């Protein structure tokens, strides 16, 4: 079983907003989309894109503010002609709290 850590309330992030979780290995952006879904992805794609937490959301996608790459928040894949993938992390919502997998913070492969 994956262990989870409470990172805040679902209302701490406004609709279509994003906030950061800082970890020793880098920042993770937590997104809340218009349809009420939450996603955790790396804020940067090394040398290619980011900070994604600053992008504009549309549907379940976010557009990188610097280079206009569009990423699918669920898979982390860049869309269209651009190639690349930001790491995504397991996250769940329980009783109004956002829980992020411990593995994301320890930055191990979430394989347990």
């Amino acid at each position, binding site marked *: 079983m994956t262990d989870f850590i409470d990172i805040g309330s*679902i209302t701490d992030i406004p609709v279509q907003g994003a906030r950061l979780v800082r970890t020793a290995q880098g920042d993770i952006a937590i997104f809340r989309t218009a349809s*009420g879904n939450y996603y955790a992805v790396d804020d940067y794609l090394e040398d290619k894109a980011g900070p994604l937490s*600053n*992008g504009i959301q549309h549907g379940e996608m976010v557009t990188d*503010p610097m280079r206009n790459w569009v990423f699918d928040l*669920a898979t982390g894949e860049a869309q269209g002609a651009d190639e690349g993938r930001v790491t995504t992390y397991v996250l769940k919502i329980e009783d109004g709290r956002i829980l992020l997998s411990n593995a994301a913070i320890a930055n191990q492969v979430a394989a347990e």
Partner: protein
Amino acid sequence: MTQKIIIIGAGMATGRALEQLIETDPDAYDVTLFNAEPRGNYNRIMLSPVLSGDKTYAEIVTHSAEWYEENGVTCRFGERVASVDRARKVVVAENGDELPYDKLMFGTGSNPFIIPMPGHDLDGVIAYRDLEDTELMMSMDDSNKVVVIGGGLLGLEAAAGMAARGVDVTVVHIMGHLMERQLDEAAGYLLRKALVDKGITVRCQANSKQILGENGKVRALQLDDGTELPCDLLVMAVGIRPNVKLAQDIGLAVGKGIHVDDQMLTSDPDILAVGECVEHDGAIFGLVAPLYDQAKVAAKTLLDEPATFVQKEISTKLKVTGCDLFSAGDFAEGEDREDIVFRDPARGVYRRLVLQDNKIIGAVMYGDTADSNWFFGMIKDGTDIAEMRETLIFGPAYQGGTPMDPLAAVAALPDDAEICGCNGISKGQIVAAINAGADTLDAVKATSKAGSSCGSCVGLVTQVLGITLGDDFKMPEKETVCKCTDLSHDDVRKLIVAKSLKSIPQVMQELDWNSPGGCHVCRPALNYYLVCAWPGEEVDDGKSRFINERVHANIQKDGTYSVVPRMLGGITTPDELRAIADAADKFNVPTVKVTGGQRIDLLGIKKEDLPAIWYDLGEAGMISGQAYAKGLRTVKTCVGSDHCRFGTQDSTGLGIKIESEMWGAWSPHKFKLAVSGCPRNCAESTCKDLGIICVDSGYQILVGGAAGLDLLEAELLVTVATEQEAIDVSCAFYQLYREGAQYLHRPYKWIAKVGLDWVKEQVVEDLENRAALAERFRYSQKFYQVDPWAERARKGVDSHEFTPLADFTKVAAE
């Protein structure tokens, strides 16, 4: 041989299981049925029609007293099972009775979730689950106010039911739109509109803080922004939790629900469980369709017949009269998924299908759900839709037919809708001109005058031609805003005003957007058009702005920000400079630069530090210089007649006056000005969006200059005699540009399109129009001249932008 079975809970699932069992083999079991509610099985989902008055309770009872008697069911209604001794196989009732069993079936349903906020235990705070709740709501009438927390299926049915009784109902929903689990923004908007029409007040993105009471009874709900919503009854419909307490107490395996296998057996082979209290293969259930399948399987298992429960696609319908809504399957967006969206704004119809591998995997329909079964059937069967893809969205009737006309939005406009603003020409007048023989764009321009002035309505005029003439008219290619729409920027702007559209989801719905939430190209453009069209109304959506405008600073390539305070006309003071120097020291600003626009730029500031540095600058009287805005940037000035021997007028003073009047305004793109004191032009007025050159006789106003990728000399708009006229012309010109140019066009691009002569007509020759434009600009400024830095540094606006949600770096370092 007859065995004894005891059933805990007379709910929808156990009711069905009981029927199946008795139908198949009436003598197999001797049944005892416990129910905590003081009544037998009834159709819980029909409580909503009972609430609205469409049905009576008697009509929704599924099993009568006679039925139980005829079938030998011992009823213990109003009695709760207190505990179970599995070793001895006896059930203990609340009154202490012990009853032996061979088999036991759990059907305890779920408990409504009550948010444990202060005041949740007051009298008059209820959930929506059973007949008692329903009766309390039915006791409300037009003298009462009720607040419903939760804009999902249940909450809306409760709200609509009470509204039908004349109750003043407010729905408070935490998400951005209603039923966000089933609907996207646009369909949520339609639903909201329908509910508002029924007299229900809907507050989205509203966070409840506490329930206020008086003498132990509910009085009002308080939101976290302090708003109080008075109420006599407060209904919480925010979700359910499987009722597993008893199962847990007696040691059955329990996760989110009571664990069951494919035969509905719990971890104890003599105990089964069905309904909302179970967890099967990681899933829990909240709708009746799968529960009925479980009931069938459980009955077979009890009779030793083979049966397997398989989870299927489920669908939901909202049971509110006049709001036809259907949703089924999975409609999250994804890499390998595609959307087909159909909107018919005139009829308030919305349909969305989600496709994957040529199959429909999800469907949402609003307004017209007649074809829902057809689509749901295809989801369940995994039908390959490649062949009918083109017309799929129109439903079964259209298979093989022709697709809908994409000009629906324009076709739906009433005859008196104004199409050409410059000449005041309505759609009806254009149609009349066409019917009188004008069958080309030029002919329409010549005979009706529509589209003959600024030209921004040409797209719409062309569409009216297309609609009126049908196949006889070939539509010219045109540039659309982005791939999400067939409309051009000009069309969208006109329609926002003509149809009084006031939010992005509303624009997308009414103008037939073909993507569910737009994209990074259309969202900021629409946001600007709304901001410009409706000053003073809350239309600005920060989430649709680019990062610089959202956080009021310029993002740099390393993710840090730069901060440029406003210095009117490029004039500063020793105190301001000291404050800037202090801030630079305090926040370790790596680079301090003088900009091309005569301002000071502090570069390399961390996002978290922005509110603090703004606070310090604010203490010294400085506000945002908006160096990040698609809006008014800077007015550069030279020293002018105050100090310079060539100066003809007070260019510095005029620059300060103009900037004081214009700061804070948003526009299609950035807008830069300069005022030079004589034709030597030290402030470089000739390459600005608007430049003023002072001469002995007055002020030359030049427009449409550029000194970026394009280099263009500004052209003379007019020469005026007084400072006040110079200011008025400047404001009028800026407003004309703000109202007319397409998003991301600088003034020179817009002038190239509409022609300098037309601009002169509007702001130079037509004095009345000049005054009206300046007046509209000044009205809009009342609302937009707010220092965004002060709001963030002092009032905590958007504080979520500047602080991380959580920080684990320190933990890791220990």
